[in-house]
């Protein structure tokens, strides 16, 4: 194993992320001995550009990939100048290997490969979910948390054991973020800055009634597609001038409120079950839906009940970003992990528990 990197005092990685509609490039600096508790991670830059589709529509792979291709150079230059480093300072180029949408992943992988060849750097392919988890741990300092990873494409409850991030529970169909995004489309809510954010704002005005939606928890897993179907039906009922359980008309805000209350209660419940199962009192929320303050509040109430606490980050780190890919990639790089150029592929399916977490005990 090439150990020269482990002996360096300052290690720098550039990370490229583009598994969904965000293109993110960031530069991270690791200082101190590898594996030492005193080692620190510093964010040198974290630049993101998001592809926003018109209200009522989702982002399609082809358009998203085109967006990433057109903005890659601009975002990369910005990330380098924000970081104030020169190309010679970079030790490795990290990119998202998966999971994600095929076309956008490919665009970014090609771009990362190009940088590696151009600058003569080594490549590190990173699992997107592990990137979220490691960044969340680094930012919040949560040592051994149960992780709730909630985004537009993933819904997983994860706990670390024996060098793997093991999945305790997950969605049986669509991701919770996908459920929210698609309901935003039903209501014709804007996708700017994010459909989930706009649902959250709208939900704050609701709450006069709690509309009855299915509550679908199966063991540590949950299901959202039936809830979305029912919410869509209720939306149609509302548009047709129907009334709620109290005989009064209800609003899109009431629908958003009820949807959030129901799906977040399910997420908190499966997280609590995993915490009880592994005997942990810390919970870390990562992924785009993780910046929802109502979810954080509910999770906090649950964790407090169990004598623990919730760790969450803000949109800079919750929402897909390049810095988390740089950070997780550099952690792997420091243990000797490399992705040779002829293996620098990407994949739509890449489970969190497939990664050997060599950097943790």
């Amino acid at each position: 194993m090439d150990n020269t990197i482990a002996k360096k005092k300052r290690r720098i990685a550039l990370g490229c992320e583009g598994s969904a509609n965000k293109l993110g490039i960031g530069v991270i600096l690791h200082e101190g001995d590898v594996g030492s508790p005193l080692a620190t991670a510093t964010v040198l830059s974290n630049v993101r550009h998001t592809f926003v589709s018109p209200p009522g529509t989702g982002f399609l792979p082809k358009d998203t990939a085109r967006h990433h291709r057109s903005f890659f150079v601009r975002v990369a230059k910005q990330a380098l100048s924000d970081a104030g480093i020169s190309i010679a300072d970079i030790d490795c180029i990290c990119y998202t290997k998966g999971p994600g949408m095929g076309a956008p992943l490919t665009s970014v992988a090609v771009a990362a490969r190009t940088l590696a060849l151009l600058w003569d750097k080594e490549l590190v392919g990173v699992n997107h979910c592990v990137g979220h988890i490691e960044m969340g741990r680094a930012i919040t300092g949560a040592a051994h948390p149960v992780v709730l990873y909630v985004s537009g494409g993933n819904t997983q409850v994860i706990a670390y054991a024996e060098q793997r991030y093991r999945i305790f529970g997950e969605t049986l169909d669509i991701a919770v973020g996908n459920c929210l995004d698609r309901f935003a489309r039903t209501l014709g809510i804007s996708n700017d800055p994010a459909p989930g954010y706009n649902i959250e704002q709208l939900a704050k005005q609701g709450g006069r009634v709690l509309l009855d939606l299915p509550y679908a928890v199966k063991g540590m897993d949950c299901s959202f597609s039936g809830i979305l179907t029912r919410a869509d039906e209720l939306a149609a009922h509302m548009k047709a001038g129907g009334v709620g359980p109290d005989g009064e008309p209800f609003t899109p805000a009431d629908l958003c409120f009820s949807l959030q209350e129901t799906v977040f209660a399910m997420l908190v419940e499966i997280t609590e079950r995993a915490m009880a199962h592994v005997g942990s009192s810390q919970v870390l929320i990562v992924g785009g839906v993780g910046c929802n303050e109502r979810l954080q509040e509910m999770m906090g109430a649950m964790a407090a009940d169990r004598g623990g606490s919730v760790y969450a980050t803000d949109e800079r780190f919750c929402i897909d970003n390049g810095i988390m890919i740089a950070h997780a990639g550099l952690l792997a790089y420091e243990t000797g992990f490399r992705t040779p150029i002829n293996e620098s592929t990407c994949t739509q399916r890449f489970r969190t528990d497939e990664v050997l977490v060599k950097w943790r005990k």
Partner: protein
Amino acid sequence: MATSSSPSETPTQSQQFPLPKVLTYPASAPPTLITQGAEGRLYKTTHLTPDRPCALKYRPPKAYRHPILDARLTKARLSSEAKVLERCWREGVPVPAVYAMDPAAGWMMLEWIEGVPVRMAINEWLGERPEEEEEEEDQGQQDKDIPPGAGEAAAGEEEAPLVNLMRRIGTVVGALHRTGVVHGDLTTSNMMLRPWGEKGQPNGCAASEEDQDKQKGKVLEGDVVLIDFGLATQSMSDEDRAVDLYVLERAFASTHPRAERLFTTVLDSYREAFKKAPSVLAKLEDVRMRGRKRSMLG
């Protein structure tokens, strides 16, 4: 009723939470908080007479949940849990008996099950063992009573007590599904290992072993009793049963990674115990595939 990993923390915690009203009435012995599971709290108290221990399962209101949703879920879950437990009890599936309940107040009194959770027993047993499980010592016990069809018979004498426990788990889950009930949260934390006591072992396993083996296997002895039916439903569908097995399989893999490969034994004895098992196991394949596919997007 999921049981905590450290039962020693019991007495001090009693004051940590306000007691449900039913436990504030005068009693000969104060209730003790056994655990705070995910679903609620479990107290040990007595039912009718001071020498009849019972478990009181209390689902406190969840502060994080909308009050209407919370009330709806608590009441529905408690009622359905009692219904399911009674059905299992009638059909001879090993579960705690229901003594009394008040769904609106959120509590239920159940038979007290002695013993430790299966999870704890397995981890204790695995913990005593050397890292290299495959390196078995030859103790010349080739004629040991491993039931026919045990998928892991070749794995050796060393693992016999664990394989035997896995078989008992499969049998109990098979009996549960035969009854028309799916558990909804099958994990090794939700199974108790009730000691056999002086009555002798029902299937003669480990009874005639050498002393050292007996000691080692001892932690894995006992009847498997299913607990915590908080998410159980009455269902005869292959899909639900397969998801039940899938939940157990995944919980097993994440809780006991070192014994993960023995899980086939559970499915083998499940097949023997339950006539409709083949179609459920076929469905389990589908459920697993679906599980893999779930890693779709970022």
